[in-house]
């Protein structure tokens, strides 16, 4: 199968959905001629025009609100917030309005909107352009949170997200944009809320999200040399998330690491750990649940400091060895 990049996969999903459904349109800053801050929407303006690849002023609250207003009146907007950090400006519209409207109105509204936003560190963009805020959004009923780790998942999950009738936070990772993988040319959906086992293993489960899936795969290849067989579960969707697959994996291996880039305190790993503790998998645990997350600091600028701020491959290897304890 042909290989394309993560960014190309997202663009292809957008293009195919826009061709298929005239109600799908893009709204955000610098999407058109510029092609988006990371070039994801590059070239879409030529095909779909300014009407459907809609550049906005630097107005995140207005972007989210406009997407929401359009969504509740029949459109399927895909908004882009240039950096996840800027979702803070749109938070009122996303959290208080978009997430609540359907429920608050007794179920009588549909909110088919997607907010795409790149997260993560590693680009030297420092504290205000590097955050991973997914846990915030998982704490808001009414939102769905999607976090693909591969080009294949990015395309299938974005198509599903656009077709879904709920507000969706679609979190991309800047460092993944240029990673490549096999992606079918045709349209396909990956159901939201279904995890993917990225690697089968016996001794240890690693539940990883976004870029940490790639790092966990690298780590597992090293660990294999020491005879440690790692199973990697990628939830792909954080809300709703696939508890069953995680539980089954932990029941098999008895040991689990939850790893994400976001700060450890209050991170999604805490949710996974708590969920496992409460589940039938508890009685299969042969070691404490381990969490790996970013340090509780803003992302620093300095390359080395930045690297140290979030889990790296060697951190995963060390954590795995600590858990295996042999």
């Amino acid at each position, binding site marked *: 199968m042909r290989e394309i990049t993560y960014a190309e996969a997202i663009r292809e999903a957008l293009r195919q959905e826009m061709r298929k459904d005239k109600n799908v349109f893009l709204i955000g800053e610098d999407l058109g001629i510029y092609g988006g801050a990371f070039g994801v929407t590059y070239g879409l303006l030529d095909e779909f025009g300014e009407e459907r690849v809609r550049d906005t002023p630097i107005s995140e609250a207005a972007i989210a609100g406009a997407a929401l207003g359009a969504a509740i009146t029949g459109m399927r907007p895909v908004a882009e917030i240039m950096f996840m950090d800027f979702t803070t400006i749109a938070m009122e519209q996303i959290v208080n309005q978009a997430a609540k409207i359907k429920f608050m109105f007794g179920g009588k509204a549909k909110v088919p909107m997607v907010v795409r936003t790149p997260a993560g560190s590693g680009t030297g963009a420092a504290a205000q352009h590097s955050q991973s805020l997914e846990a915030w959004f998982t704490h808001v009923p009414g939102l769905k949170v999607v976090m693909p780790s591969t080009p294949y998942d990015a395309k299938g999950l974005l198509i599903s997200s656009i077709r879904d009738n709920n507000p969706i936070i679609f979190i991309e990772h800047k460092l993944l944009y240029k990673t490549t993988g096999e992606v079918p040319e045709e349209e396909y959906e990956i159901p939201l809320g279904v995890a993917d086992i990225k690697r089968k293993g016996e001794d240890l489960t690693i539940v990883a999200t976004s870029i940490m899936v790639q790092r966990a795969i690298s780590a597992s290849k090293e660990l294999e040399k020491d005879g440690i067989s790692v199973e990697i579960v990628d939830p792909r969707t954080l809300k709703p998330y696939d508890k069953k697959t995680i539980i089954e994996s932990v029941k098999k291996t*008895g040991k689990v690491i939850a790893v994400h880039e976001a700060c450890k305190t209050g991170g999604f790993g805490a949710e996974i750990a708590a969920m496992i503790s409460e589940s039938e998998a*508890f*009685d*299969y*645990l*042969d*070691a404490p649940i381990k969490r790996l997350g970013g340090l509780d600091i803003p992302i620093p600028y300095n390359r080395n400091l930045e690297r140290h701020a979030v889990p790296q491959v060697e951190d995963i290897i060390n954590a795995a060895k600590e858990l295996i*304890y042999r």
Partner: protein
Amino acid sequence: MYEVIMPKLGMTMEKGLIERWLKKEGDYVEKGEPLLEVMTDKVTIEVESFHNGYLKKILAKEGEEIPVTEVIAYIGEKDEKISEEIIKGMIKEKGEEKIEIKRREEEKVLIEEKPKYKVEEEIQIEKILKYGKEEEIEKAKVKKILASPLAKRLARQMKVDLSKVTGTGPGGRIVKADVLKAAKEVKMREAEIKEKEKIEIEREIIKKRITPEILETIPLKGIRKTIAERMYKSISEIPHFTLYVEIDISNLESLKDKLNKEIEGKKISYTDLIVKATALSLEKYPILNSTLKDDKVIIFKDINVGLATSMKDGLIVPVIFNANKLSLEEIADKRVDLVNRAGENKLELDDVSGSTFTITNLGMFEIDYFSPIINFPEAGILSVGAITKKPIVDKEGKITAEPMMKLGLTLDHRVLDGVTGAKFLQYLRKILQEPNKLV
């Protein structure tokens, strides 16, 4: 007539203090016009009238604190009369709304007035809430075993006692591998025990097989005990040896027949003949008629021949005293008397004491040879086997069938040697082959 109620003015308001009535009884009040001031949560709020009309009756005075929704006044038409009940404040018309509120209030009271437990009870209850039942509290007190949840579950399933498992995980935590190992050991131990048990059972079976089943246990007593002691003493003290001979007794047979024809009413047996022949042989070789005592061989002058005789309870040896001096007839008489009395268990101590040499005969049971135990403390015993006809080559070289008697002579090797015994037997053979000497 409208009720004026203490209004709920805030989401958390439960009662209000009437600070001031802004209208007097009889005043006209318009809807929306301030009617009174109510203080709640230290905040004074003007309450507007919900109705148009004349303030007919104020039920709640300034300074009174009234729960929300309680009627505090009535507003009515100018000439409307208030019923006595209302004036008395006894019966207050309550709409369903008020009943509902009342119910809610009551529920609230119920919740607040939950029975209070005594302090100890509370502690107890708290404990139970925290740890579970009494036993579980006790359990919680015993040393905490560090084990992973998986290890605990496996231990439960495999019936492994975690208190006996050594943890190899961090901080000595018992992990899966430890339980599996322990379970394997338990299994091995169980297998070992099983194997041992199996061996034990097999051993039992074998033991049973090699130990004859007892039909009956008869305690050794009386004559049997005496025999046992005497025999044991004899065989353990006396080094026995036995010499065997086979003697042609055709002449003896002729003599016996002849004598038995001559003597009316009496019967001379081979035993009588042997007793006499033996007694005569003992005369010739008195060393056999002896006893060894305290490193001395005591040779007896009297030749008292004992006859081993079978009784119901055992063997007894009645004695034919001075047999060398008795005729065959006397010996026969004596023998018959003794055997009869033995059969009737009527032998006297004198009948069975004082023998110096013993003869034992199993010939009638078709025994060829046997090696008896010497009748302690004598020096020898003559055993008599069966008489059978055998082919014999005579002096002319002809083969004839002759009656042959088998004899065994068992002796005390301390007293004498084989040669002496052999000589004795040679002499005895001579007498028995030429038995005329016996008459």
